[in-house]
């Protein structure tokens, strides 16, 4: 990572959804602003700006991360996946399909964060119980659904994967 202390400027190299990027940023710039504003990936949303609601959750090297708390410079060299990177030409990701089938979204603002959390959960635990699912989703807030349809979607996704 190149930095220039005189101009307070850093060049961050990162891969987002399989595409390499080289982005010049102020060191204080948040990863979510690079994703949304510099790269135009507006599927990731900011709900609270302090890591509580989980709306901005993306996958960084396969692990869920709050992009509103992470500086872009911290993502130097990382492989980032946002909601835009989940679907392929062949269709939506199985977790997205499960969310569709269970109608796990109403306004959709929190959905990309829940999708990222769910992908990480199922990577770790292919057959989570309902209690494990609810615990894993505890860091993501949804104000619309009452969570039941989201929990159902995670169950569907885990069943579809088996």
């Amino acid at each position, binding site marked *: 990572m190149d930095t220039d202390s005189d101009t307070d400027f850093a060049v961050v190299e990162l891969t987002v959804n399989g595409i390499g990027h080289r982005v010049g940023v102020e060191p204080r710039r948040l990863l979510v602003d690079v994703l949304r504003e510099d790269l135009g990936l507006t599927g990731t949303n900011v709900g609270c700006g*302090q890591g509580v609601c989980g709306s901005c959750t993306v996958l960084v090297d396969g692990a869920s991360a709050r992009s509103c708390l992470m500086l872009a410079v911290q993502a130097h060299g990382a492989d980032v996946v946002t909601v835009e990177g989940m679907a392929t030409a062949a269709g939506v990701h199985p977790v997205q399909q499960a969310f569709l089938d269970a109608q796990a*979204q109403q*306004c959709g*603002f929190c959905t990309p964060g829940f999708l990222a959390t769910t992908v990480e959960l199922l990577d770790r635990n292919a057959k989570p119980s309902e209690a494990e699912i*609810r*615990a894993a989703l505890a860091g993501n807030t949804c104000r619309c659904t009452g969570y039941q349809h989201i929990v159902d979607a995670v169950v569907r996704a885990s069943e579809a994967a088996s």
Partner: protein
Amino acid sequence: MSTTTGPTTGHSTAWVGADLPRKEDPALVRGSIAYVDDLRLPGLLHAAVLRSPHAHARIVAIDTTAAKALPGVHAVLTGAESLDVIGPLARFCAEEVVEHAIAVEKVRYFGEAVAVVAAESRYIAEDALALITVEYAPLPVVADAEAGMAEGAALVHENLGSNVVYQHAFTFGDVDAEFAAADRVVRRELRWPRATAAPLETNGAVVRFDAASGRMDVWSNTNLLNFGAWVMSATLGVAPHMLNFHPLSVGGSFGSKHFLAKQIGIAGALAKVTGRPVKFMEDRADNLLASDAQAPERAHVAELALDADGTFRSLRVKVVDDYGAYFMLAIAGNTNPLSQIVGPYRIGSVTYDVTAVLTNKNQQGVLRGAGSDVTNWVLERLVDAAADELGVDPVELRRKNLIPPDAFPYKIPTGNFYDSGDYPAVLARALELADLDRWRAEQERARAEGRYIGIGVACAQQRSTYYASEFWFHNIGAPAPFTTTAESVRMRIGPTGGITATLFAPFWGNSQETVTAQLIAAELGVDPAEVAIDLAPTMHGLPSAGPGGSRMTVMLSGAVAGASKKLKDKIFEIAAHQLEASPDDLELRDGVVSVQGTDASMSLADIGMAAYWQKASLPDGMESGLEASFTYDPPFFTLPNADRTDLGAFYPIVGHGCHVVVVEVDPETGQVEFLKYVAVHDHGTVVNPRSLEGQIRGGIAQGIGVALYERVAYDAEGRNLTASYDEYVVPGAPDVPRVEVAFLQTPSPWTAHGVKGGGEGGRMIAPPAVTRAVEDALAPFGARIDELPIAMETIVGLCSPP
């Protein structure tokens, strides 16, 4: 089916009521939907707001010199400077409660805007805020309604001469005589907490002003877009016909995004000053401090008069409501409940005595239930209290007093009507699904083991399809403009038969596209998947009030029916002409018009092609094209009288629900665990069951929130203690139970397809059921719950020896 002559419409599938996936969802799971913060315009500037650290103070001086000098800053505006470009905010009250988007002369709540910045980025704008210095002269703080009413209290608005901004006792029937004649009066003092919607997406606006044409474009997550031109024109200083509001997808509202006049005003002022498009997007603190969407904070003295046998006679509710520092929506949150103040019960007379007090807090807006959530809780608390005092089963007491199914349409004492219902059937179904008797046995067994299980049952109303008259009719003696909120749809069948429907309201997390497609499918006999939906900005719009007050599905049902009729008339006229048949012999089924009993037929594509490109094949004098629009008005209303002893039928499409809740409470930790949650609702004909189930489950989560967790808290100096999601706690996945939802469907006699609205019912009915379940669990401790939220520490306190 039809006994009148004319063409027949049919379809292979009953699309109304079909359990279809939502049309909205694919874009949501792909993240390709556009919310206001996603909007990019060339030259876009970003705004940030400096907020008051005082709840009540005079603004002595503001120095913005250093902020203006920061590279990248385009404009800094104080409230006084903003008056050159914008006017005061619109208000729906008659009282002279003046509010500016940016405070002028003094601040009236902690977090009120005192200066705004527009800069190249939000980072620079916030840097600039740190360079602004403000000198304040603090004033005594009016910390709550009681303090506001006290003799010699500081005045939030000096020009009013009092903090009591409204006081009136609405009386319907001879309440005093009924109380005097009653065998028993049950009385409770009940407090409802200041909650807020706190949707995941904060409020925002992008405003572009073109000085050359005088035209202003507004992209915002407001629902004000439908009223925006006339409501916001004076604030923005732009003639109504030069204002264009664009519908966007909205990341949750629950009523909190009805107006956003302040957010739009700030972006609008900066756009006018800079000549550039400006975005103001609240951060979470902006939203929780100053969104103008906090909800009722009410102290009640509530009394139910009844006979010794448990028959309800009369209701008296005295409410003091803490409105916060401004009064934009007047007392609409207290007049809204007059649509259903007697709940599902036969109660012959009512007094509702409202005192509205201004305090140094952010003001009230709308939150799912719009005040009727509160009165549902108050009435159901009284019913439970009455059962306790009479020593009778609360379920039986409810059943005894329910309005019987043969009494509809039923006029309640306030003048509003209930259109239809079968309340005993809803109750019976809920009890059956919940297996109440088993849980009562379980409760007894658990108590013997020292475990505390409680059961709560609530029966309550969900008025739907708001007309908005509650915003006006409280001004006794003044002319009472009776508002009717229309909704429109424009439908077009293209030359290849494809159907497009244009709507005029934003997507709010509800399912307007899905239900519109289903309704069109039902009317035209096509597959809903083939219907494309478009949203039009207000300059191209037809009358619309958008989502809110549980109205969209009802209103779209009527609008689609009306537009479809016009389209079908033309379709049949073209087909009759081409097929040389009488229109009475035609039928439209699965997208094909045929002459009944023959092979002669035309597809919608054939008819579309003729309508657009084959004038010679159309009947003489027919206009080319195949498009129709229809504006649907509320289907039934009566007018209020002059002294407001009859408010008229202003909210007469009324749903109903019964919730049965079983909880186990841990007296050591105060933890509430849900063991069973059943919700049986009747919202008339259901258009899309899974969508409505989602609305009900989501509403219940919010109802659990207000019952157990949610409260906007201010300290004695008026500082907001809950300006983040860490402190304003909303329920998470582990806190909300699985909810079994079932529907009864008593069609409305007044709406298309018999549809009623159901978007608010979950939140409106859950709080009393949850409250009672916790209270019942703690009955061995003699606990009585008169205040929400029932925080864990409250429970521990109730269970501790005195």
